């Protein structure tokens, strides 16, 4: 982890019609930092990730990733930025979705090689070699030729992680990566993410309801409520001894030990 912020939200407001999801929101993530967002449903956690992935524009404020602003003055479209500029931002950030979002018409291997070949211009041979390494890493070396429909949820999510990593992002976003999984499959996906968390260079921003897991992998946990960060800090502090009553109430439902400790 370094002292330069790679992600910066400054005074950001995000609205859906009349609903204000983020209200003058400030947030920074350091390069290489592993940050977890926790908080009640509807508090805006996914919105933060979706803004960073350029899936949602903001109405006000500054969003920056690796020094690149999400808005360029005078440009058109919801992002006020050119397609080229958005392309540059997206080349630095990847996302793992709750529902995997694999391409059903492509084999596992093709899911992982398609973007490196088409977007990064890798040769097919290089892309395949890299894909096989990644599949090895997520424990699915034997599934290269399978199709998404033939995989379990846990396997699909591991492919999705490999697919995102194949683009060599500097920032990887995880939106509740294990929420759609049967309980017995959660562990295998967490194990892969846990190993990634030891990667020094990769900045990770993760939304989860798995408190124990958040504690294990995060440098910092942010408790979100109603579009604001109510409380944040190292997981040991936030999760064992939260200062804010709202955090305590929220965690109480998840971690029995916080209410007693």
């Amino acid at each position, binding site marked *: 982890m370094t002292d330069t912020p790679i992600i910066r939200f400054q005074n950001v407001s995000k609205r859906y019609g009349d609903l204000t999801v983020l209200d003058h929101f400030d947030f920074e993530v350091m390069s290489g930092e592993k940050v977890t967002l926790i908080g009640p449903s509807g508090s805006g956690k996914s919105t933060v990730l979706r803004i960073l*992935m*350029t899936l949602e524009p903001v109405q006000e404020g500054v969003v920056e990733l690796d020094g690149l602003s999400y808005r360029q003055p005078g440009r058109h479209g919801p992002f006020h930025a050119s397609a080229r500029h958005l392309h540059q931002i*997206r080349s630095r950030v990847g*996302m793992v979705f709750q*529902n995997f979002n694999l391409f059903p*018409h492509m*084999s596992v291997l*093709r899911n992982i090689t398609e973007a490196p070949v088409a*977007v990064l211009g890798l040769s097919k041979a290089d892309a395949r070699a890299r894909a096989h390494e990644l599949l090895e890493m997520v424990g699915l070396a034997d599934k290269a*030729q399978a199709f998404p429909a033939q995989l379990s949820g846990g396997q699909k999510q591991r492919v999705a992680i490999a697919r995102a990593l194949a683009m060599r992002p500097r920032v990887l976003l995880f939106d509740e990566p294990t929420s759609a999984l049967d309980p017995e499959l959660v562990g295998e996906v967490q194990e892969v993410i846990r190993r990634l968390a030891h990667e020094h260079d990769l900045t990770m921003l993760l939304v989860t309801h798995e408190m124990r897991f958040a504690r294990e992998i995060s440098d910092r946990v942010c408790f979100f409520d109603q579009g604001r960060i109510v409380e944040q800090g190292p997981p040991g502090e936030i999760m064992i001894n939260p200062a804010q009553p709202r955090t305590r109430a929220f965690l109480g439902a998840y971690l029995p030990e916080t209410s007693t400790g």
Partner: protein
Amino acid sequence: MSGTLLLPPLLTGAQVTVELTLTSTVLGAMLAFSAGMARGAGPWPLRLFAATYIEIFRGTSLLVQLFWLYYALPLIGPRIDPFVTGIIALSLNIGAYGAEVVRGALLAVPRAQHEAAVALNFTARQTLWRIILPQALPEMMPPLGNLAVQNLKDTSLVSMITIADLTFRAQTLRNLTLNSIPVYSLTLLLYFAMALVLMAGMRGLERWVRIKGQGDMARA
């Protein structure tokens, strides 16, 4: 027997019907893809242009379109050969209906697929051709097959602008022989036989699209 006498002229007409059907279905399919993709995924001027074309041809009768091209157009513009007129009207018509099928199938691909494409930094064009269209294509084949059969049946209307298709021949024969039952029964059978062949062909095409998709995957 009258059947053996009736059959040769009817078959000559059926050949014209086949030519009309095949040509206008192929041209119509090209139009359907262009207009459907323009309306479903194009920039707004193209979208508007495609929408105007689609709605005009879906909203007016094929017979009147034929009459307009055949009788009205020559008064203000070129006179076109009846066969070509028939092809143009049929193609534009099936193209308009087909475009809605294509557009619907494109729009039915879940938003999550578009978002995954953004997250992997595909351009809009790459997303359309590599992610969306391959998933939409198998979905649009059955309704496009129905439209092709519909088109075969619609070709009978071109007999109204003097094209000697199967229906035209049937009418001529009936007027000549006054033998309505064998003439029209045989005509129905011929249309039905052509429809069966066409449906089998479309099902083959449908299977090919699916297998081709799988082949793409295997080649990765």
